Each structure stands twice: as C-alpha cells, then as structure tokens.
C-alpha cells in the first residue's frame, strides 16, 4: 500500500544519508518543495542520478552540501547557463562525477526495471566517457562478427523522487507523457512522489488517464505539495517555469556567499510557507 503522507517533512524523512536517487530533468516533474525540506533536514552524501540529466534541484542539493556523487549525462540550468554549485564543487574536487551519456542512463534503468543484469547499447566506444567508467564493459555481440557493444549494468536507485500533477488515494500517480518518471519508478527500490492534487476516485478507472498513470504498486509514499515544482514548471498543468527566479538563482549561486544568502531566503527561510 502506498503511504499517504500528510507533511513534506514526513516525506523528506524518507530520504536518508547516502541514498542513490533518480532525479528527472527540469522539464519533467521536479519535487522542489520536497528537496527544500530535505535540505532543511541536513541530509548528507546523496548519490544523485540524472535521468538522464538534472538541473536546478541537483545544483541546489550540491550547493547545500547534501551530495557526494553526481552520476549524470549533464547538469545544466538551460538558458540560465552553467549550474554554478555543481561547477564549483567539481573544480574543488568536493563531489565525485560519474559522467554518462543519456541513453546509457536509460539503458541501466531499463535493465533494472526488467530485472536483467545489464543492457547493451551502441555508441560510446572511443569516448573518454567509456574510458572513465570501469563499471561499463565492452563485450562482443554474441550474435555478430567482430561487433563490439557496451554492456551497462542494471541501475537500481534506492529512490526515485519526483513531482506530478495528480494522484488518487490508492497511490496511483498520473504523469501523462513524462514516461521517464514511469521508468524511474519501475527501476527504483522505492518511489517518493509529491503531487499538486490528490483527487477522489480511481485514476485507473478511465483508460484515458490509466495510460499515463504509474500504478500505486510502484509508489512507496506520496504527499500533496501545491506548486511543488516551483521554481520549475510542470508539464500538462498551468505551472510554468519562473524564469525570473531561475535567473536570480543563477546569479546568486555564482559565489558561495550568494548561494548561502539564497538558501537562507528561499530554502531555510521558506519552511513556514511549505
């Protein structure tokens, strides 16, 4: 049974030190209100996995000192430029980066969701991405002739964490076409979700909503969080990205002092509002 959690703090308590966590990109569903609560808890040593990249939320977590490892194909604030705390942490050597390429992350999650030990993929051979990933192996295509392919081991995060438009009281979560969230939930051991709205009825009863719904089977716990993706928007809702705020973040986070002021104003100082 999906646990219906009544506060963000209670949901944030399920994000424990050292957890490996699958994160969606900024244009999917980012659980930013939840991440602010996680930062307020002072969680440490997270291993973030960008599916296949991450942005603002990961940069915020890195800046707040919550992250040990960033496994991702990129970290970016999109039009707002480089992710400043990620960049600073890499240059200082204070986090480990496991660089990937997008389909390799998807391949690892897809192996996990089918319970297979690995997936194989094309590409990568001759790159420094592959050269620096001792956990990926070049193998010979057993059905081919002198045809090297890359084996990507199953990637099974401890947690998948995201925000979505709505869920019902059975724990079913509607994600529409953002189906990377479905793969994340299938692959992860546990999935924590915040939603704009918990609705009456059953999202599985209508095939139109069922097609875009993650069954409660995969959802460990969920909580309601209005505008829970802010300052990011949320697909298939009226919530659009707050670009003025993101530009302000990009500017403030350029320095450690500026980032500390940002945290004080918008994260630790925001608790009462959330």
């Amino acid at each position: 049974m999906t646990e219906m959690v009544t506060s963000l703090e209670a949901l944030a308590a399920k994000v424990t030190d050292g957890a490996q966590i699958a994160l969606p990109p900024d244009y999917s569903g980012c659980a930013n209100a939840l991440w602010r609560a996680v930062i307020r808890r002072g969680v440490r040593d997270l291993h973030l996995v960008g599916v296949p990249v991450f942005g603002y939320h990961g940069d915020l977590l890195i800046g707040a000192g919550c992250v040990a490892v960033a496994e991702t194909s990129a970290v970016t604030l999109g039009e707002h430029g480089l992710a400043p705390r990620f960049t600073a942490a890499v240059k200082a050597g204070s986090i480990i980066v496991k660089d990937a390429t997008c389909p390799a992350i998807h391949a690892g999650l897809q192996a996990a969701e089918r319970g297979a030990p690995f997936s194989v993929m094309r590409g990568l051979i001759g790159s420094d991405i592959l050269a620096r990933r001792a956990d990926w192996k070049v193998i010979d295509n057993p059905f081919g002739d002198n045809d090297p392919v890359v084996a990507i081991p199953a990637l099974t995060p401890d947690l998948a964490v995201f925000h979505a438009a709505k869920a019902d009281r059975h724990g079913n979560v509607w994600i529409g076409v953002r189906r990377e969230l479905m793969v994340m939930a299938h692959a992860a051991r546990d999935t924590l979700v915040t939603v704009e709205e918990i609705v009456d009825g059953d999202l599985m009863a209508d095939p139109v909503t069922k097609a875009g719904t993650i069954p409660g089977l995969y959802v460990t716990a969920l909580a309601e969080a209005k505008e829970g993706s802010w300052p990011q928007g949320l697909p298939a809702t009226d919530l659009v990205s707050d670009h003025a705020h993101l530009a302000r973040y990009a500017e403030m986070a350029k320095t450690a002092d500026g980032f500390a002021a940002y945290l004080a104003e918008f994260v630790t100082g925001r608790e009462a509002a959330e």
Partner: protein
Amino acid sequence: MSGPQSSETDVQLEEILIHTIAGMLEGLRHVAVGASSPVPGAAALLARARSGEATRVSVLGSEDHNFFTDGGKELFDCAGQGRIDAFFLSGAQIDGKANINLVSIGDPDLPKARFPGSFGSGYLYYVVPRVILFRLEHTKRTLVEQVDFISAPGFCEPNVYRPGGPFAMITDRCLFDVDKARRRFVLKSVHPGETVESIAENTGFDYDVPDAVPTTALPDADTVALMRGRIAGEIAEIYPAFARRVFGLEKAA
C-alpha cells in the same frame, strides 16, 4: 553578437547561421534538436516551414514541437533505429578530427573548467547520419588540435558500428564540410566580414582550403520574414531569452 550588414537588409549573423543550417536539412524526414541549441532549433523549424511540413522536427524541452510519448529514452531509441536523419552537437572544444568535448578542460577529476556534460552525444554522434556540429565562438581556444576530453569521437575504428557522424561544422565565422575519407574539415564558405586568412588566424587545427572559397549566402527577404515571424514565435517557447535577443520577441502567453 552583432551581425554583419548586407547591402539590402539588416540581416543578423544568427539569421545567416539559421538559414545556412536549414539548407542542410532540406528533404529530410525527421530532424531532432537537443539541449542548448537555439540556432539549430530555429533552423530545424525553418526547414520544416519551408518543406510544407513534410520534415518532422522534435525539439527537446518543447511541448509544442515534440511528438514523443514514451519519455526521455524515445529520442535515443528512435535514433538508434535510424528514424532520425539529422541532429546537432556542439562542444566547449572541437578538434580537427571532429572529436567533441562537452565535459572539462584539464584533468577531468580536478578540471580548470567544467561544462554541463556530454548529454546524448556519446550515442547520437554514432547513429545519426547527418550530425551538424556548431560552435558559435570560433577561436583557437575552442577549435583546437586535440580536445582535452572526448565526449564522442569524430571517427571510429572500422569494426565499430557507426552509421552516423559529422556532416558539417558551422561557426560564427564560417562553414566547414567534412571529408570523411580523409577525416578532415574542408573550408566551405566564410561568413560576411571574414576571409580565408581570418579563419586561419582563429582556428587551432589543420584543415583543407579549396582554391575558391565563397562567402556564405544571405537569406532572401522572404526567408528573413519567415524567421522573424513564425519561426521566432515557435522558438520562443523553448528559448525565450534567445528569441528576445535575436528577434526582439517575448514568449507568447
């Protein structure tokens, strides 16, 4: 960037680039556009408009110009099957062997500079037949003899599955063709205000220079109007700051 002036219009450099790239997309079935790619995105949308909507365009991050329904993996699966004809890649550094670096300068573990990362390049460069490289800062700092980190190699050993690869490279100064057999760039045209010599002064790798190198063609008035009208509105959904800067446009409500 302030654009060069033509005698007839106030065509901007970005508009020349968009027009030039769109010309390389004519007749294609499906063009995909990745992250941080406003000029290629506008070019793909221009090519679609001029094709009478025959060319499909998928723009990452767009809800209006993206028909994928199977999540983030679908672009790559689609490309792996050969269903995507053209894609665009850039690099903090690009070298004369068409290797691209999207990761870092110096030791990757303690870099002097760190960039976002390789995105899908470690796959798409291998499988998309027509990869157009773009680098809108053409200097010896960016176009180098040897990249510091290979996000994706320009070319592979013969036994590596590689139906895709570099097709051309466009910069803010010129257009290069790719000689696949010799694994070298070939200067194809220089943008207004540039010369064969100015390209040489600003390029850190060796490339071939034919006897005659024309100036890159300017878009005609109809194309400029199309870019500043419909295309500006379309690209503003994904790149509002770019649309504002180049086309003076605010994102539509």
